[in-house]
């Protein structure tokens, strides 16, 4: 189990970092290799759509990030084994890259 490390958390809304985390399969908060299960933080709407905008994270890092003072109070934590990385299309109503968990873990 990785110790929570938020050293890279300031980048979790940068497009380049989001893409790099998705493809390199590293945690958006600490930049270390992801572990199973992969954690996503998202709003209720993101959970309902199964489309998350923040990069994948370690479970411990996501829990720690949720506890930080600047955290979004509407964030929910979802864990999954795998995810699809979806690049938005030209006319996509959601212009942000997103993650669709495909094998939720309790």
């Amino acid at each position, binding site marked *: 189990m990785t110790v929570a490390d938020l050293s890279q958390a300031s980048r979790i809304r940068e497009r380049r970092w989001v893409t790099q985390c998705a493809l390199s399969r590293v945690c958006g908060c600490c930049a270390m290799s992801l572990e*199973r299960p*992969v954690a996503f933080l998202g709003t209720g709407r993101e959970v309902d759509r199964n489309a998350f905008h923040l990069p994948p994270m370690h479970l411990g890092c996501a829990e720690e990030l949720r506890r930080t003072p600047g955290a979004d109070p509407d964030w929910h934590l979802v864990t999954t084994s795998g995810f699809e990385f979806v690049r938005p299309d030209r006319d996509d109503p959601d212009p942000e890259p997103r993650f669709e968990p495909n094998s939720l873990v309790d």
Partner: protein
Amino acid sequence: MAISDVQEYMHLTDEEIEQLGRELDAIRKEVEDSRGPEDAAYINRLIRIQRYLAVAGRLSLLLGTHSKRTRVPAAVTGATLLGLHKILENMEIGHNVMHGQWDWMNDPEIHSSNWEWDTAQPAEQWKHSHNYVHHQFTNVLGYDNDIGYGILRMAREQRWSPVNLGQPVYNAALATLFQWGVALHDLDIERIRKGEKDPKEMKRQLKQIFRKGRNQILKDYVVYPALAGPQWRTTMAANVAANLTRNLWSYVIIFCGHFPDGAMHFTEEEIEDETRAEWYLRQILGAANFEGGPLLHIMSGNLGYQIEHHLFPDLPSNRYGEISVKVKALCEKYDIPYTIGPLHRQYGQALRTIVKLSVPNSWTSSDQPEPPTPPRSRRRRSDSERPDRIRQLGAWSRGTSQERKAS
């Protein structure tokens, strides 16, 4: 110049390119919706076979080399089985598992975060240099470090230097020692030489490489030969042969993916403002397939379907064959080149490019249509210099969800 301005696309309207993107999305969705127990059985079967091959190879060397009568056949059999095990593990299993192709199975063992493969490069570094740098910036000069692996000049747009005269020799050395070349790939030696690499990150990576390389050497050249007792030399020679076979095979397969005639290179200007559909187009035009039967495709990690792998790197590799039929039909429909040929021809073309580009451009003629771009520096870019996908990724709100709702 945008990617859509490349000659091969000029006949397509923006709407046609977007329509092609939607049709490729539909192929992806169909596979995502239909993957299930049969796919899981495929990868589990292959892992079992790969492990049987490893055990059979080790047993042949341990038990068969003590008698003078069986020594040579046992050594040949052992080396062959071990070579097959390493090829299967690296190409069809390790490479594809690390792309996350099997994460959906929810199997703790067959998962992109856990798999450590039987080669010198640490999995974590492979996932950065290959999954991110190569797959995100496919064939973009100065960004994709797979274009010549920092050793070879593979595009006419790259500046020639007298050092390139030695390319045929460097190429032979790279092929022979391929696992070690790949092990150093993510270090980016050029940036280290120029003092541009973060020393802390470099130290961390070097430690990882040292640890992984040491374990590989201990396993193949110390522990197993020691277990063979008096026949340690035979076992060591068989292990050298197995590693060499894997090195040469994986080198050939990888070089057939992007260097045969028809696989194009791009410039950073061409990926500016790239939409998702244009990203798909760049993957199609930057990759090359080779033909073969099911066994050849499995032993090459299904990279004979390089175009399909680049379009959908995280879909299960056993589905690339069926996907290729649909992608090829789409390429015909939209009149887009689909580069494919027999393995020997594809590798022959890559080898010819290596030899031709060892000398200045004026001495040779180009073998493929390439966009007229000025000579470019071969300097590699760091992650911070790699561009954002401006339109492809869209504008990013930095606010919280509540701020976004409020706006």
